[in-house]
């Protein structure tokens, strides 16, 4: 009998003692982890895109709990997620302007003059290193889709040699804008439907030589805008999306057809 009892008692006793010790240790060494973190993580989309500016969803959740960070920074979840996070944190939700990526080039191969025929790897960075790409215009979309490759939401595609953003899918995480070697993708408020689809800061004469639809900085749009939302700076017009009322006068007046409506 004792042959069975002794090992049971010893090992069982060890188990109980260790259990009690661990229980006590978990009380003594308890680290306060905020219970709101897992709740916020549940609400967040979990895409880990980094669009909020943090390393991932969990980093953002931790930053939210430790304070000083606004709950409306997740571009994927948008207002709905911001509201839920605010509920968890017990703070008022703030409306965040819906943003979207805009490609500031419309120079497809028929409109933009070609400098040479690029025959290298099908990648924007490679093309950009070889004399700035095959387009005459140094600010033109290269059309090899490096932006397409980094988009986690399938919101960007290359059509007719120029990148096009699907506004409905775009979450404005900014990955494409970072990737583009020409830096012609900008994250802009979705409110303004009209975009100057050119970023050429060259003088009007040179832009006109390089591309049929380039902004030459003539300023006609700026003069005609009823809200004064357009300014010409460095030979290229820029629309202030917050002032724009989507009247469309600028697009109809532009002699170069460089202002386009995007949904």
């Amino acid at each position, binding site marked *: 009998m004792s042959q069975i009892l*002794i*090992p049971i008692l*010893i*090992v069982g006793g*060890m*188990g109980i003692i*260790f259990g009690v*010790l*661990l229980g006590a*240790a*978990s009380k*003594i*060494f*308890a*680290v306060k982890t905020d219970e709101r973190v897992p709740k916020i993580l549940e609400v967040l989309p979990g895409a880990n895109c980094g669009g909020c500016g943090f390393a991932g969803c969990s980093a953002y959740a931790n930053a939210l709990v430790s304070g000083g960070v606004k709950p409306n920074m997740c571009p994927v979840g948008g207002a709905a997620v911001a509201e839920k996070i605010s509920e968890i944190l017990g703070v008022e939700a703030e409306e965040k302007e819906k943003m979207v990526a805009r490609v500031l080039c419309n120079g497809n191969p028929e409109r933009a003059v070609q400098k040479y025929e690029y025959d290298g790897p099908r990648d924007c960075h490679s093309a950009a290193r070889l004399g700035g790409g095959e387009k005459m215009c140094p600010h033109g979309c290269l059309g090899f889709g490096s932006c397409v490759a980094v988009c986690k939401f399938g919101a960007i595609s290359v059509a007719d040699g120029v990148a096009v953003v699907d506004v409905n899918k775009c979450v404005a995480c900014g990955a494409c804008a970072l990737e583009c070697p020409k830096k012609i993708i900008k994250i802009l408020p979705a409110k303004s439907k009209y975009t100057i689809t050119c970023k050429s800061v060259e003088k009007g004469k040179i832009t006109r030589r390089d591309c049929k639809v380039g902004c030459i900085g003539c300023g006609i749009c700026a003069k005609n805008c009823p809200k004064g939302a357009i300014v010409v700076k460095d030979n290229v017009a820029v629309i202030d999306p917050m002032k724009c009322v989507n009247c469309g006068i600028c697009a109809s007046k532009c002699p170069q057809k460089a202002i386009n409506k995007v949904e």
Partner: protein
Amino acid sequence: MISELLIISVGAILINNFVLVQFLGICPFLGVSKKVETASGMGIAVVFVMICASALTWVVQEYLLVPFGIEYMQTIAFILVIAVLVQFVEMFLQKSIPSLYNSLGVYLPLITTNCAVLGVAINNITKFGGTEMSFVKSIVYGGSAGLGFTLAIVLFAGVRERLESSDIPEFLKGMPVVLVTAALLSIAFLGFSGLSFN
């Protein structure tokens, strides 16, 4: 005495390397050896746990199992001790040294199920049980076994990092080439078996 401890440690690190000669702890060896950085993190965690486990299991063996004549319960008792120890160390580190806790990360709880740790505990008893110096020897043996593990996994991770950028035939890509590499490394360590101190 020092020469004796030196022999034990060289023996555990090189001649009877836990991973490459005794084939213990293969799963973390293959699992967390993709990057030198994570491999060394795992190695440090293993050294730490092995030293603690060696000390504690020696005490359990000497003052619990032997007096009651239940040495056959060794395996269960040691697994219990190691699991509790790792849990405790994790809690302690999280509270007291959060920076170390964060850098060890997920490896610490993973070690609970590392057979190399149990191997150290059992080797301690079978190799040095009964002699008067065995407590110190146990700790030295545990630390050296951990260092041997670190050496093996860091070497292996270095090779694997190079493999990433090399041109490997299609049929060898992934795990096959990793296993071939591990085998070659193991054969290389066989060379140390000539280093005999007896």
